[in-house]
């Protein structure tokens, strides 16, 4: 019963994806064909070949991986630590600080582009991969997720550790972090996806071809007169693979039924 429902839903979700993958193997003239064909009549690697021939795909891949991995590591640390501080802290104006984080959830990156550009420029981060990492390591969505998660951690765990003589650092490292494994796993997956699919920062920061990311290169294909749809589809099929790997890797960090019993400090 459960499996049937899940499979039906999964099929519905995957229809466009399936269509993307099959269409990426069509030639341009077949893509223009109406009525549309579901499977390519003749498998064409035109889109894939063009990507490798016309663009420096491996370089973009390296750049994007570098940015996504480094910023994910920093993001996870920042969010977990902030979430803990804001959820379990005892300082004054805690609610005010939380709201300051929440309001930035509603900021559209494309809209603050110009002020952001000015700041990044002042920090000397233009046209470098660090310019894609440093401005993005803090993410309101990640922070908010962490705050909400930490609120659910039972206070008793922290109190009993304190009674046993642990200081604040020990509590954070030995109690909070192990209890946050599902949070860390999901933040890592999210953060990697965000950085991988980021378009706004690369657009304003990157000036030279050697620093291009996959998303910037993909958007560049949308031209003035037409779009090579097969190339765009091929590009997006390939660009999804690294995120998929990260997802599968980090999934194993989830744990069913965390309990205090198994924890040592």
């Amino acid at each position, binding site marked *: 019963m459960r499996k049937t429902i899940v499979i039906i839903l999964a099929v519905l979700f995957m229809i466009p994806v399936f269509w993307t993958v099959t269409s990426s193997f069509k030639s341009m003239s077949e893509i223009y064909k109406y009525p549309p064909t579901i499977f390519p009549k003749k498998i064409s690697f035109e889109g894939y070949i063009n990507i490798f021939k016309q663009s420096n795909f491996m370089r973009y891949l390296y750049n994007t991986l570098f940015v996504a991995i480094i910023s994910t590591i920093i993001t996870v640390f920042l*969010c977990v630590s902030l979430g803990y501080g804001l959820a379990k802290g005892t300082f004054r104006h805690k609610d005010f600080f939380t709201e300051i984080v*929440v*309001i930035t959830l*509603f900021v559209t990156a494309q809209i603050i582009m110009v002020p952001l550009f000015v700041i990044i420029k002042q920090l000397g981060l233009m046209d470098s991969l660090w310019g894609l990492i440093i401005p993005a390591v*803090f993410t309101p969505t990640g922070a908010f*997720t962490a705050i909400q998660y930490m609120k659910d951690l039972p206070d008793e765990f922290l109190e009993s550790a304190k009674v046993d003589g642990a200081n604040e650092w020990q509590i954070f490292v030995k109690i909070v972090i192990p209890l946050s494994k599902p949070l860390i796993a999901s933040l890592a997956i999210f953060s990697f996806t965000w950085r991988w699919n980021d378009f706004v920062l690369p657009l304003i920061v990157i000036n030279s071809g050697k620093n291009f990311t996959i998303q910037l290169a993909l958007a560049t294909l949308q031209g003035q007169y037409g779009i090579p749809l097969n190339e765009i589809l091929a590009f997006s099929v390939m660009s999804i693979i690294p995120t998929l790997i990260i997802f599968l890797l980090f*999934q194993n960090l989830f744990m069913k039924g965390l309990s205090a019993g198994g924890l040592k400090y």
Partner: protein
Amino acid sequence: MYLKELKIVKNRFIFTIPAFVFHFLFYILPIILMIVLSFFSWDLLSPMKYVGLRNFSQLMKDKWFWNSIIVSFKYTFLAVPIIFVVSLILGVLLQEEDRFSKIMRVFFYWPYMIPMVAAGTMWKWLFSRNFGLVNYIITSMGFKPVDWLDNPTLALFTIVLVQVWVLAGFMMMLFIVGLQAIPEEFYEAASIDGATKFQKFWYITLPLLKNTNISVITLSIANCFRNFTIAYIMTTGGPGYATTVAPLYVYQKAFTDFRLGYASAGSLIVLLISFVIAYTVRKVQEREIEGGKI
């Protein structure tokens, strides 16, 4: 004095400092600059001109700006409940750490992994009035083609559908994390009492998910009020202004018409409105939790 004796360590404020440094530099500071900009007229290339409150007074009279806020409201209140229900169902069904769940989660998170540009292009193609696959299937079954993106009301629904498709997998992950954090003991106790599956879900799971629920709802509202890529790619805000959500309107003012000051003023208003909505929703929920503590 030892580091661990410091007050900011004791009250755990120190844990927030690293994040707040970045938060200030790349979120708060740009907002402050945006507030400053909203008092100027600027097209990026010529010198800035101070215009006082003119941008705001023009905005008050701009009927399409207010229309875009209404569109955003409709969009958000249509999308958020659907996203919530779909992702909760997915979360509950896939919370176990068995092989089946692990594999199936990938498929639901997949839409979130696809670059928005590519996903939007794909959907636009599928739902295209005249050469889309969906209408082709409908017409070959003998029905009339549907104006998925060309009927002002239906276009909004279509875009909501794509939004649900994109976000459900992401929210599902939040639910899985939340569900897994519920200690087994709670369920064991209920089983002894002879509770049915549904009773367990209603009386134990849902209340214990309180903070996850708040997360999902707040983040969904924020996402719907912040993102415009789907509408931008699928309809360019059309027909007319029917799917021009507030951030899209502001974006077009900024970078199609190059009215940076006007756009800044507009986005400040959008920011405040969306924050107030989310704040209200969150506080209502938090109060409910406090009132109905289990």
